[in-house]
């Protein structure tokens, strides 16, 4: 038999931080949107806001444009700081395609 031993070409991944913890439930929570304003986000995110408000009457869902919108700004530290300062419990990010 011929044996070939070689390096795994996929390399290593560093996991530096865990994902944010999930909330126990959405009732009474404050939820925001971070939108890139692309791919029908202007229709889908308002629809999702309405669904959330219908399904969880005590929920507070911020306006879709409460934070800066657009691919060029939603990944910035400034936007992250605004989201944090808003006191939201959870954030929905959309839309990618």
């Amino acid at each position: 038999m011929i044996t070939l031993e070689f390096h795994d070409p996929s390399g290593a991944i560093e996991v530096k931080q865990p994902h944010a913890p999930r909330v126990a439930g959405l009732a009474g929570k404050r939820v925001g949107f971070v939108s890139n304003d692309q791919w029908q986000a202007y229709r889908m995110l308002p629809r999702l806001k309405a669904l959330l408000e219908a399904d969880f009457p005590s929920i507070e869902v911020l306006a879709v444009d409460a934070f800066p919108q657009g691919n060029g700004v939603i990944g910035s530290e400034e936007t992250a700081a605004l989201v944090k300062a808003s006191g939201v419990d959870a954030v929905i990010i959309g839309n990618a395609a």
Partner: protein
Amino acid sequence: MTNAVAGLGLAPDAAMVTFPIEMFLPGSDIGPLDARRREIYDGLTRWRSAFDRAGDGAPPRLRVEGTSAEDALARFNHLMLINRWGDGLPLWPPTEERVNWILRGAAQSGERRLGTFPPRGGVTTVKSCAIALAMAGGRPEYLPVLVAAVEAFLDPESGSEALQAASGSAFPVVIVNGPIGPRIRLNAGFGCLGPDPQRPAGASIGRALRLLQQNLGGALPGIGTMANYGGLRYTNLVFAEDEASLPAGWPPHGSDRHGFAPGADSVSLAFANGATNIRRRGARKETPEEDALQGMHRMADFMRVPNMAGLAGYEHGTPGIIMIPGVVAQTMAGLGWTKASMREFFWEHSRIPLADLRRAGGPAWIEIDTSKVARESLALDPWPITARPENFVIVVAGGGHPTNSYWLQGYSPGVVGRPVALPVEFDRLIAEAERDLGPPAP
């Protein structure tokens, strides 16, 4: 697009709800959102990452066994495809022996960290480059150019993080200046964009870069990269400027764009999303002046298109790379043209009348661009395709024949230069290449 979170240092999974592309198109039925909203709610409340601990998941060594050398090689290649690590063409196994051979071309330790490859975030070292170069059929003397190209690629100024995943089929173009080009048999002449068995360096270096983009960066078609067409991604484009044919007074690209000293070894990396051959030469009885001017207009006409992807480089990048053969450069210089005056000409004559731009829906893209300079350019009519003439890249390459030039349409937020560092024993590597490959082609 779970790659995107891995590149940020998060676990390589995410709470994500995906829908067929049809729902994201204009006029779509967004009813599926209602039907599947519980999945979104679960993402906010019940989802758990499959990666429950932080840390460095260094992969183990792999092995295959075969009844013969050929059988083992076939099994290795099958394994590469099963794991989505190949490109469909045969690969060399990156054995310890072969990788160590490649690492003789390293000017630094193999463990030297170059960064993390976006968007997946694979840890990238000099040894990672050697593994990819070994798989791509490369040689040790190619490694300095690959390492410099990877350094340029990983520079945030290149825009690689977004372009790796984007739908616009961007591919890196690596322009090499300095004596290292001819020394490693990197083509600058006929067929410089390959393939060329006489000067195979560009194919191996570019293929290795592509393997890194895929295996460390996660740019798998339809999974990690939404590039509709891919295009030129087997080997990307890696070539040298034909410095021997540069007219007197014409600076090499590395000096012109990045300020490297003439004669210094360097790479320059930009992204393109198109490649077009232009019949530059006149057909009949033109004077030298007419031939030159008509050719310049013909090149500018190819540039005068609403390349909205090119907005990414409107301010700091490039609208594209124009390649002209050395014999043409010599003629143009004899008529008084310089790289700078050619750039001015291209900038002026590639402008698009605003009415044409409006007809094509261009202003909407320009209005949402993150660059203030780009947005304000809408006040200009005709609209310049880039903010300034200096953004055009002109490279002398392509052989001693005057008929064609070549336009690599830009999709390049930046043009990033890096010096090439050579190992102490580089001369010995070149001598071994001559032993293995025979004397260089004339």
